[in-house]
């Protein structure tokens, strides 16, 4: 990532100045939101400068976006807002290795009329590596504040999409007025995942693997052609512009890594197959099931970001007359639960540097899940390293982030006690030198769970049960229930209608990586009209696009899972 690093440094030189100037000039801010000062002093705190290096009774100064001093006898600047850090712990701000934080899901491209399924347009196929996530950043996204509250200050955010959604960027998890203000570095990696196009090529992992190889090899040839032409165009065929292949050039040149969203073990191996076959720089991210892969990934020099998301602990049946077989099956489930929650410890033991990806994790689960990993063998220092120094160096920003040292970005997390203790709470988060203050909740009388968490969704099958849907059409809204069941490995479902129309079956239901798609048919005056629905399930909400191929139109379909199932 040499080139990227240089670019980051250039940005680093400019950004603090820019923000500093803005803050000073904004004296007549009618909203009253501007901070009175951008100089802060946290005094008499335990400062964890880097994992394992704690300074007791220290003072840390953040000035104009940077950490300007750390020590026991630091003079406090006159313009500083002084925060009494007695009893508090200060850490470098956390860094998220790969997620969709701050990114808005673009409207799904409607199914083109007369779609030629063997060779759909690239944007329908999900092959858009030329897209930059910066164009999809939503400064008002609640994910930014949600993850910041958990201690994250920088995220490597990637675009939504299918096989090759585009390039990721490193963003500050800050409140700003314009997406540009969030950018630490753009175009840091190409993002890829094994998600096929609905009913068009490549439709699944088979086609995706082949398409990947085909694109890469053509990009390799196109790059050679382009270079040759730029050196001397005389008498040489003019290379055709192809933005998709051009997006591969820095990858082929070994300057830009490819980040794969690969949760399960076989998908990790498939990403590694492509890497071995083609030879690009690789990062495997959002890995949930990679406990056997540590040694191999280490040998191949892959960058690793483990998933922050963990399975729910299995509950044993309370029945008293459990058979021996049921007991054994339960024991094996527990065995595998342990493999998931000790994955990070396995990587630590194997000496593989890693960070975390928060994809699919909510802010309020970050600490709980980190604590679970620590209970299962990860040391607190390594846990901190995986949130700070690890990702900083894996993302090539260790010169500016990852530790609470002089000269680094003013990215800090300040907690009421050691972060990896159950009762501690986040009091302040500093992002890019700006302070975010959080209210401390009093411990409840009963129990020692200090942080009030909404009940986690513990159902094993997030899809199963009854959902209330709303379908917006030009003729008005239509509502009803979607009832989804599972028979063997297959989902089945029925849609009922509030207006008394007969029930329709949901067909071709597929659910993968949070994306639910299905189709259903309606009777349009004697003509059978097929409607394709595809969208994302997050918790109890389903947000989808329904498209009618016959008329080349699409509508919004949203659904909420009914309580009590």
């Amino acid at each position, binding site marked *: 990532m040499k080139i990227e690093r240089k670019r980051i440094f250039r940005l680093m030189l400019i950004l603090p100045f820019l923000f500093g100037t803005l803050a000073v000039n904004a004296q007549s801010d009618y909203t009253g939101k501007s901070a009175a000062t951008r100089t802060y002093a946290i005094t008499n705190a335990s400062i964890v400068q880097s994992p394992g290096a704690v300074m007791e009774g220290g003072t840390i100064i953040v000035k104009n976006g940077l950490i300007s001093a750390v020590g026991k006898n630091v003079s406090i600047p006159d313009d500083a807002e002084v925060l009494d850090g007695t009893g508090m712990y200060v850490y470098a701000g956390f860094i998220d290795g790969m997620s969709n934080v701050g990114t808005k899901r673009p409207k799904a491209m409607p199914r083109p009329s007369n779609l030629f399924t063997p060779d759909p347009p690239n944007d329908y196929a999900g092959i858009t590596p030329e897209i930059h996530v910066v164009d999809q950043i939503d400064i008002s996204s609640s994910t930014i504040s949600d993850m910041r509250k958990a201690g994250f200050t920088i995220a490597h955010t990637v675009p939504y999409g299918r096989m090759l959604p585009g390039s990721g960027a490193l963003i500050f998890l800050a409140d700003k007025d314009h997406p540009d203000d969030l950018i630490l570095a753009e175009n840091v990696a190409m993002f890829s995942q094994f998600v096929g196009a609905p009913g068009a090529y490549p*439709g699944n992992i088979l086609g995706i693997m082949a398409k990947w190889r085909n694109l890469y*090899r053509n990009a390799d040839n196109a790059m050679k052609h382009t270079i040759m032409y730029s050196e001397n165009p005389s008498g040489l065929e003019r290379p055709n512009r192809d933005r998709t292949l051009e997006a591969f050039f820095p990858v082929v040149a070994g300057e830009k890594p490819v980040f794969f969203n690969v949760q399960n073990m076989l998908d990790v191996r498939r990403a590694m197959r492509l890497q071995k*076959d083609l030879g690009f720089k690789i990062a495997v991210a959002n890995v949930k099931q990679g406990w056997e892969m540590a040694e191999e990934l280490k040998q191949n020099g892959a960058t690793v970001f483990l998933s922050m998301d963990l399975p729910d602990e299995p509950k044993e049946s309370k029945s008293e007359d459990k058979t021996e077989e049921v007991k054994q099956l339960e024991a094996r489930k527990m065995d595998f639960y342990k493999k998931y929650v000790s994955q990070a410890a396995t990587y630590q033991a194997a000496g593989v540097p890693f960070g975390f990806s928060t994809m699919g994790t909510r802010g309020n689960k970050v600490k709980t899940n980190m604590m679970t990993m620590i209970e299962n063998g990860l040391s607190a220092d390594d846990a901190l390293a995986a949130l700070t120094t690890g990702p900083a160096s894996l993302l090539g920003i260790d010169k500016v982030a990852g530790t609470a040292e002089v000269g680094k970005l003013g990215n800090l997390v300040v907690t009421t006690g050691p972060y990896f203790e159950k009762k501690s709470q986040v009091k302040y988060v500093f992002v890019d030198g700006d302070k975010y203050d959080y209210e401390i909740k009093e411990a409840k009388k009963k129990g020692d769970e200090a942080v009030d968490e909404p009940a986690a969704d513990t159902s094993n099958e997030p899809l199963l049960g009854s959902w209330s849907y709303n379908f917006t059409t030009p003729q008005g809204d239509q509502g009803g229930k979607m009832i989804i069941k599972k028979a063997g490995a297959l989902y089945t479902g029925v849609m009922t209608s509030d207006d008394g129309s007969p029930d329709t079956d949901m067909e071709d239901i597929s659910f993968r990586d949070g994306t639910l798609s299905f189709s259903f048919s309606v009777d349009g005056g004697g003509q059978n009209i097929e409607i394709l629905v595809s969208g994302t399930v997050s918790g109890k909400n389903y947000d989808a696009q329904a498209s009618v191929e016959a008329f080349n139109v699409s509508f919004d379909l949203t659904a909420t899972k009914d309580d009590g199932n």
Partner: protein
Amino acid sequence: MKKNIYIIGFFILVATIANAQVQKGDVLIKNGTVLTITNGTLENTDVLIQKGKITKVGKNLRIPNDVMTVDATGKFVMPGILDAHSHIAGSAINEGTAQVTAEVSMEDVVNPLDVAIYRALAGGVTTTHLMHGSANVIGGQNETMKLRYGSTNPDDLRFEGAPRTIKFALGENPTRGGRSRGIQPQSRMGVEAMLRNSFSDAKIYRTTWDAYRANKSTRKVAPEYDLRMETLVDILEGEVLVHCHSYRADEIYMLMKVFSDFGIEKLTFQHANEAFKVAPELAAFGASASVFADWWAYKLEVYYSTAYNAAILTKNGVTTSINSDSGELIRHLFHEAAKTQKYGDLTDNEALALITLNPAKQLGIDNRVGSIEVGKDGDIAIFDGHPLSTYAIPQMTYIDGIKYFDRATDKSDQRLYINPEETIQEVSIFDRESQHRCMEDAQTLSFSDLFSNKK
């Protein structure tokens, strides 16, 4: 094709990895009734396997140092069973969105965690041919595998050194896909046209690349690379064996004509329920057939069928095998083979060859497996009775001299990976149709739709 460096490099790399990790064992199987397939039945005979290969077959062999001995007195020792048509252990089966997908390969989607692998081992099966589905006229490349259950690395299941094979499909399945998507082929005529067009395109592609390679200029520009065409060229060059899903005699005959025109020789018809009608023609072409013992009538093109199919083909000199195409049937292929004795009076040896040596020939690996001979791989199934008897039960299954199944130490839960969030499943009586994955991810039209004029 004058070689694609990437592909060669890739195969060498993969082969190296596989060779480095695959275990090879030593074992002496003593005093069994050895069904050699190529050398008759040998009573009270020992089979010695060393470093994964059969090194001796004979009576009262001396036990070399450190070699485990298995007493097979009263038991039957046969070569490990091969299934030339299987969809177990695949994470995906069809790339059903296009009608020619020669570029995709099942080797990318091998799923070593599928417990069906263990069930197949428990039926004496040691090698399967993981096939792409039948939704496309030219489907994906298949993967020949050894069922080395227990490893979670797909590379460990690779049958190292086996030739490449590819799936083709004729008749209702590919036309059903074409009709539902409004693309070619919508009829059997379209299937033939697609085949001819594809190979004609491949010849042009070959010419273009040959010209590029012959060009000595330092400033030459590479033509477009197309993995699909690369594979089709490899078929034309005879480097990829074709296994074609087919039912009717007319379409079987059609494909032989097309292949004659393009000079393609290595051809096995899969299913081929009407192959008995063109058995002499198959023999003359040198094509083989891999059929069901007695399974038919699940769609219109499969009504004209007979349980004598395998026997008629065998008597006509066609290399014939019996396959499962199912995670259930694969557990008792020896029963399926035995049916040819009821329907067609095949000899023990002929019947057993249907699930051993003949499928090995069809997969191009008969120099390695399919019979008990010195020099072949130590892939062995041990039964407590004659495998063609209804009462026989497989006892042990060896691959490369390593034991992967032993009825005596069989655990009730053989799954490799477990989802900790999954509720404990109730196991229901096996549903054969639900295991039939030929048209998975491709079923866009129902059976009744097929004959409607809606689209």
